[in-house]
């Protein structure tokens, strides 16, 4: 599914190159449920941005479904994000102006799917995450757990190869965290590939494979 080989990332801070990732090798198979764990400053966010095609590595290669992504331009990366990747963020990142349904429809706007198909698929995705009765609510009318489930529906609606979750329970209380993790379990059972980035070992414990990152390197 995804293969990262010798990924190096430097940031320029003034005159100095600061190495953040120092040679990451990672392979994730289709259908895997993986967590990437690390303390803040370990480079896990940078790794997640590179896997999410929001950033480019300074060196190394990144293959998604046997396609080399390092040669892609900005528009190409946007296409990959739209078609192959689904994002779930700590802060949900829903558009407050739009209803739950409209938020879920948004990735399909950029995929060129017709309006009626968009509506049907978004409604179906919301039913799947248990929010079939909330489709006309705006984010402000939903609880944190509900908002995160809308975000998960949005991440899945374009049928991505990979669901990428960045601290998905970071802004939720214990009970709703459990609900969201249960949902991830269900999705994993349905065969969806999931990568969760977290600093929370309780979250990491629930995944099938744990990867630790420290000082820009994978340590086990």
């Amino acid at each position, binding site marked *: 599914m995804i293969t990262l080989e010798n990924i190096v990332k430097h940031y320029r801070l003034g005159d100095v190159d600061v190495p953040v990732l120092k040679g990451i090798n990672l392979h994730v198979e289709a259908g895997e449920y993986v967590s990437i764990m690390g303390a803040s400053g370990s480079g896990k966010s940078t790794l997640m941005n590179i896997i999410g095609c929001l950033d480019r590595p300074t060196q190394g290669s990144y293959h998604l479904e046997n396609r080399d992504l390092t040669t892609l331009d900005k528009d*190409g990366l946007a296409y990959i994000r739209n*078609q192959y990747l689904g994002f779930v963020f700590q802060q949900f990142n829903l558009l407050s102006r739009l209803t739950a349904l409209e938020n879920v429809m948004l990735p399909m706007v*950029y995929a*060129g799917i017709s309006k009626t198909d968009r509506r049907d698929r978004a409604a179906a995705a919301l039913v799947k995450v248990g929010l079939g009765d909330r489709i006309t609510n705006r984010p402000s009318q939903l609880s944190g757990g509900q908002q995160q489930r809308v975000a998960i529906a949005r991440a899945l609606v374009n049928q991505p190869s990979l669901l990428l979750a960045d601290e998905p329970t970071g802004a939720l209380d214990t009970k709703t965290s459990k609900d969201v993790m249960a949902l991830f379990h269900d999705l994993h059972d349905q065969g969806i590939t999931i990568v969760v980035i977290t600093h929370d070992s309780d979250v990491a414990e629930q995944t099938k494979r744990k990867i630790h990152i420290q000082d820009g390197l994978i340590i086990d």
Partner: protein
Amino acid sequence: MSITKLRPHAVPPLEVGEMAIAALLSNKLRSGLTMLGVIIGISSVIGISSIGQGVQKSTEESLRGLGTDILQVMAGEAESGGISQGQGSVSTLTWEDAQAIAEQAPSATVVSAYLQRSAQVVYGAENTTTTVYGTDLNFPEANNTFPATGRFFNEEELDAAASVVVIAPTVQENLFPPNVDPIGETIRIQGEVYDVIGVMEEKGAQGPMDRDDAVYIPLTAMSARIIGNNSLMGTSVNGIYLKGEDESQLEALQFQAENILRLRHDIDVPENDDFRISNQADILETLNTILGLLTGMIVAVAGISLVVGGIGIANIMLVSVVERTREIGIRKALGATDSTILNQFLTESIVISGAGGVVGIVLGVGITFVAANLFSFAFVISGGAVLAGFGLSTAVGLIAGVVPARNAAKLDPIDALRSD
């Protein structure tokens, strides 16, 4: 398979438009206030240019009503101790001059001389101050103004300096009750009694002069009783109307008249002319030039408010991009390309400005309509002005939106997602 040329689907313009309208409607007060600048700018440009055109058209029509095949010879300004007494104040033109032009200028078909004074006219207990014209038999033909009822005075009456008067409609209205036929009644002009023999047709106000507020008496009667001069020869006149065959003859006629008058007045160089010849076409042209200039100047000022409106849009769009940094980050993470984001914000700017333009056009046309009815000039809306107004407002939105939209498109999605 190579995917280096992968391009995401471009969002169709109509859908970008819908997105823009939804975003603008989510903050109605701000959008409305931002539009106001363009509304004021476009409505003033449309309103003022249309009012200018309407006034121009009405002036032109009324001047054409007098006939454009006519020249007017005005007596030169008399000077008293180096101070100009005003055009026609003391006449350098005489009845003889008029006769000479009639006889010697081959292009002249009608020649009519006149004297003119402001005087009080009385009927019974009613009185009004009007312009009294002392003139000859050719006056109606020269001015394209004929009696509607009754008749103009005849040769016999002119020779005898008869006390007869033809009145114009405004004077009739001011002096006579509606149920009284003025013909056969007598009125007094400066104390002298005159028999009313005709009422002129209505001509409407003709720019500076109002032919409807006047009375006409024989030049001889005017000269003898009001000015005080019994001989026709050597009688001063204030002006002479000259009519040619048609408009094309006016230049020749003017040349002939000038030469005849210079000979008679012993003038060797045109700079010393003690008379001035003007024609309606010249007056029309001058009026049009002045009106056009005035309109242009006011439209330019209105255009400045459009620029200010554009700056307002640019300002609000810049603020909006900063406020919506996170939204931009989310959209990019979901697959929006830089150009899609650029289009979205540019469209918002164009929609807000274009909508302001449409409201401004409607408002401008409304203002013109009300003004045209209030001040009775022609209601003219040129399609060109409306199109230009719409084009201008769209262009303002486009220009104002470029920098904010580029800022939005260039945002790094990682930074944008991290912003509050």
